[in-house]
């Protein structure tokens, strides 16, 4: 009984880490722009594919000589993927969201644009790479550790640690640095900030870089843990991570971090206690209940809108 409990806590922490990493990306963009970037789940998918191509290239799949061991490939793949994924995110902002913002379009239209951008990414991928699935290479030797009858892989530990470290890193950037202060200021008052001489577009681009590199990181870790890639892989986890961000209080990165783990823990523990066919039904009823009691989410603050 105790072993199963411990095993389930580890499962929940791993699964929650993915929700947290993805929810962080949602909440960063929302916090600064008040934009729900529904394409975020698909940016995670793009990140996973980018990681797939980089690591295959480095492993000598496309005629390049393979000269690096697996761990070195991984060490190179992570920063490269994060960089390339943020290029995708920033491009999306440049061609899809910024023109609308310039024209002063209602936020609703920007959200719809984000949804469409997500569909374009999915179907573009389907068209370019075809429908058959890709198998992500095993970059590091998988080690299964055994404690009593609890099993944990080195990958699982890595995922959980990465989620925690990236939260700490982001928290530092936002609360302790100048650019973080600018991000908070824009979220506070979008119209007064440019008057103070703060380059608002640069800060927004930086936000997208941060958010998308989180998505890239989540994509690599996801591909390592669930090594089968398909163009729709980001959809369902993206939506669920968005819900996690809302439950945590969207706009606050502590909320996204906590919300992701809460959703992971709820999902796993529902399966552990009830028949697994009820998982989503019970899990989301609980989240609905949390939102009914605290409509702004756990860390959210109520906002007044000036007209």
């Amino acid at each position, binding site marked *: 009984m105790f072993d199963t409990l411990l095993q389930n806590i580890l499962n929940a922490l791993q699964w929650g880490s993915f929700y947290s990493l993805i929810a962080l990306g949602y909440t960063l963009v929302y916090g600064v722009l008040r934009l729900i970037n529904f394409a975020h789940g698909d940016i995670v998918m793009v990140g996973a594919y980018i990681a797939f191509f980089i690591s295959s290239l480095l492993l000598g799949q496309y005629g390049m000589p393979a000269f690096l061991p697996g761990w070195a490939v991984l060490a190179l793949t992570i920063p490269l993927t994060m960089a390339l994924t943020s290029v995708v995110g920033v491009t999306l902002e440049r061609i899809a969201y910024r023109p609308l913002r310039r024209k002063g379009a209602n936020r609703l239209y920007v959200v719809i644009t984000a949804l469409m951008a997500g569909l374009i990414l999915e179907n573009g991928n389907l068209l370019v790479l075809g429908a058959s699935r890709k198998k992500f290479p095993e970059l590091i030797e998988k080690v299964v550790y055994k404690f009593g009858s609890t099993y944990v892989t080195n990958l699982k530990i890595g995922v959980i640690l990465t989620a925690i470290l990236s939260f700490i890193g982001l928290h530092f950037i936002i609360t302790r640095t100048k650019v973080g202060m600018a991000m908070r200021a824009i979220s506070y008052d979008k119209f007064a900030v440019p008057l103070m001489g703060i380059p608002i577009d640069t800060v927004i681009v930086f936000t997208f870089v941060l958010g998308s590199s989180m998505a890239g990181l989540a994509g690599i870790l996801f591909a390592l843990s669930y090594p089968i890639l398909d163009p729709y892989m980001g959809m369902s986890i993206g939506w669920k991570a968005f819900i996690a961000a809302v439950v945590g209080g969207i706009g606050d990165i502590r909320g996204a971090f906590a919300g992701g783990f809460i959703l992971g823990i709820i999902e796993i523990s529902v*399966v552990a206690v009830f028949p697994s066919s009820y998982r989503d039904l019970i899990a989301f009823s609980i989240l609905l209940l949390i939102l009914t009691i605290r409509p702004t989410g756990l860390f959210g603050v109520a906002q007044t809108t000036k007209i």
Partner: protein
Amino acid sequence: MKKILTLILALIFSFMMIGSGLAAETIKIGFNIPLTGEIPKVGESSKFAAEMLKADINGQGGLQVGDKKYELEFVYEDNESKAESAVAVAQKLIDRNKVLAIIGPNSSKQAVPAGEICDLNETVMVSPWSTNPDTTLDRPFVFRAAFLDPFQGPVAVDFAMAQFKAKTAAVLYALANDYSKGLAEIFKADFEKKNGSGSVLAFESYGDKDQDFSAQLTKIIAAKPDFIFLPNNYNEVALTVKQAHDLGWKGPFMGSDAWGSAELMNLCGDDCIGHFFSTHYAAAGAQGETKKFIDRYNAKYGYIPDDVAALTWDATRLVLQAIQESGKLSGKLRKDRKTVREAMANIKSFAGITGSMKLDSQGDPIKCAVVVRINEKGEFVFTKSVCP
């Protein structure tokens, strides 16, 4: 104005093309197959097998029906592995493409609803791969080339009891998939009948597009069953088996025919080696016509054909044989579709590359199942054949 004129001219021209096509006497067969979505490899296998068959017959000048030769025309439509798209595709093939008969859909999730449409529109449909009984049940126009789940379930139970000396089992199935859910329930009922109630220690499910099964597997492994039964599609199997090994599972898995895709070993790798599944034919060690088919397919497309490819070959040949046996086509589509259906129902026996079969009154074949083992080279090796 000029544009409109060009358009009209183009339209007239294309109508003339269609007209001339009709004059050369073609037979149109529609394929309702998943070229994208959950199981794209299944659609690809179907299409490749059909293309090979078409090239064979058209190469001989066409299909001989009575005293006339007809050229074959195959229309491939993608049902995206979705139930609603399969219904739309069936309707489109019947109304717009005006096909004589339809092959597919492949999985039961799409074949059950699409069968309804074909039956209502009185068009022969043959599903190569669907094993759920509801596909053909009380539908005179719907047939299939695969065995049924009420047969496959007990095959898996008996094999596991003999091979693993199993007294207990656990099941993990996909809730949103008719095939998986139906087969899981049949398996559970049969296993408990033979081993006493409660011998299926865990009966767990997961939802559409799920990738993490750790909670369900933790529950299953904690129950300590003798083996785990996975009646799921190959892509989910690859994830499940890996995660189970991460959680310390060292026991055997037993699978069903949905494992048997050519892509299983690409996705699953070493984790799947040594496990067993029930299927329609075993490629490794095949003989006669079956071997000829496998070799030609392998030479043309570069991989060993999976069971879907072989079953599509059989299903299409079944329809073509029925068309030939109907003796004569009148050229009136509705009448010809009924003639083909009569001829299908009258087929006494058929020697397919997945074994010889007879069609019963429901349109279901009576044929044998095989159990294969995945060997160290990733080949599916014949282990046992079970006949009804």
